[in-house]
């Protein structure tokens, strides 16, 4: 595939065209919504937020929470998932409970978390961890369960101890599945962090969206929305890259990461 194909000039032309049409329609007052800014307005809102430094602070806050929450979720989730995958009794005792807990809509937990922990930073992190942990648990458990029995024979031949077996055989073999879970975890953590900022902890991009909406500054609300999209895009691109790098043996991970 050539450079032209990869750069996709038609695609970017459509983007520019769409923005141009939007600008013209709003300027000509054909699209008449009280709170729909033109792209040029969004751009100036963007400039204001950049100049005051609010945008950067909010962006870093949301990114920080997403990273912290997904790190916690992956650490706890891998441990829990490995236990479920390795110990049949534990799995029998917890599977249905995990199903019930993971289907509770995270949004419904936010009011409960507010009552228990108050409108604070830790509440935001806890809620984001809760949302991010389940894909890790489920994927790790599945990955660990699918480890080929012959690998355990190998471990026995080398007389590996329990912890060694876990570290050298089980976790590497389950790594593709764990990585898929981890990727989903980061995305959920980001989404829930934004929501929690709207409802719980008045900081970050989520709060920026709400604050500017309530102040009736739609051009700034749009600037925040575009920023969150760019953040999501960057995070996604990084994850695809990281997963490809982290997968051992250069497997065709498109099949895995779908």
């Amino acid at each position, binding site marked *: 595939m050539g450079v032209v194909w990869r750069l*996709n000039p*038609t*695609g*970017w*032309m*459509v*983007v520019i065209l769409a923005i141009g049409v939007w600008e013209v329609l709003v300027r000509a007052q054909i699209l008449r*919504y009280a*709170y*729909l800014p033109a792209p040029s307005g969004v751009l100036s809102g963007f400039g204001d937020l950049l100049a005051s430094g609010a945008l950067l602070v909010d962006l870093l806050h949301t990114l920080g929470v997403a990273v912290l929450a997904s790190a916690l979720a992956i650490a706890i989730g891998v441990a829990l998932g490995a236990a479920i995958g390795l110990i049949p009794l534990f799995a*029998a*005792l*917890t*599977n*249905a*409970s*995990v*199903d*019930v*807990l993971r*289907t*509770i*809509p*995270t*949004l*419904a*937990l*936010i*009011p*409960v978390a*507010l*009552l*228990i922990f108050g409108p604070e930073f830790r509440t935001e992190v806890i809620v984001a961890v809760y949302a991010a942990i389940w894909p890790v648990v489920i994927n790790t458990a599945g990955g660990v369960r699918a480890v080929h029995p012959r690998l355990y024979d190998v471990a026995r031949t080398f007389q590996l101890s329990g912890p060694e077996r876990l570290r050298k055989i089980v976790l590497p073999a389950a790594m593709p599945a764990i990585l898929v879970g981890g990727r989903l975890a980061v995305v959920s953590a*980001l*989404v*829930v962090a*934004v*929501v929690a900022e*709207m*409802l719980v902890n008045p900081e970050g*991009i*989520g709060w920026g*969206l*709400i604050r*500017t*909406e309530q102040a*009736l500054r*739609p051009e700034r*609300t*749009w600037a*925040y*929305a575009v920023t*969150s*999209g*760019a*953040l*999501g*895009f960057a*995070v*996604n691109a990084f994850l695809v890259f990281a997963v490809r790098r982290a997968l051992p043996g250069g497997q065709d991970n498109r099949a895995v990461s779908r």
Partner: protein
Amino acid sequence: MSRLTGLLPLALLLVVWQLVGPERSVTFPRPSTWLAGLQAMYADGTLLPAVGTTLLTFVASLIVATAVGAAVGIVMGASQRIDRAFTPILDFFRSLPPPAIVPVAGLILGLTLVTNVVIVVIGIVWPILLNTISGMHDVPRVRLDMARSLGLTPLERLTKVVLPSLAPRIMLGVRTAASISLILTLLVDMLGTGDGLGRQLLLHQQRFQANAVWGLLLVTGFFGYAANTLIVVGERYALRHWPEGRR
């Protein structure tokens, strides 16, 4: 049987909580008081309308998003050129955290029952659309050729060849969309002026009526579980002609 043993830890936790938990508390009220909280809401007539509103928003938005996403996806996926032309825009919407759409669209459209559905649809349509588009690329050529040599009309080709071939991919998108919709349905309610479960949760939290909040969490949890089950059943129905491994 195994389902029941799997619920054991959760049930045990609730029993212990009931025995040692405080009667009145703003954090962890006893489970038995949750039902009393729900009872009170049922009595003053706010519970059932709230469940109805949330259910309606959830189901309506999922149906509309599936129809729109599949239809637009089939058109866009049919031509590589159109697909390429919209790739950057779709990539942006795919990576946009869905909750960010709510304040932006809320400013333009306002947050009423109808616009709530529209906003949720805008938030959840992307996985269905993207899966349909990539599904269109995977429809085996031989099937389309065969449809043509059998002399099927375009409509017959759509209903007898294209849609059945796309069903697994569309359902994959629907499943992702449903889990986002559970978030957005409650969020539009919390940020807007609706009377759904999200609003009730937030109202009771602001009044520190913990038993009602936990009761509503129970209802919402059941709602999420039911939605999940519904999707699994719907998927099994939609894919009933597909062999088990090929879904």
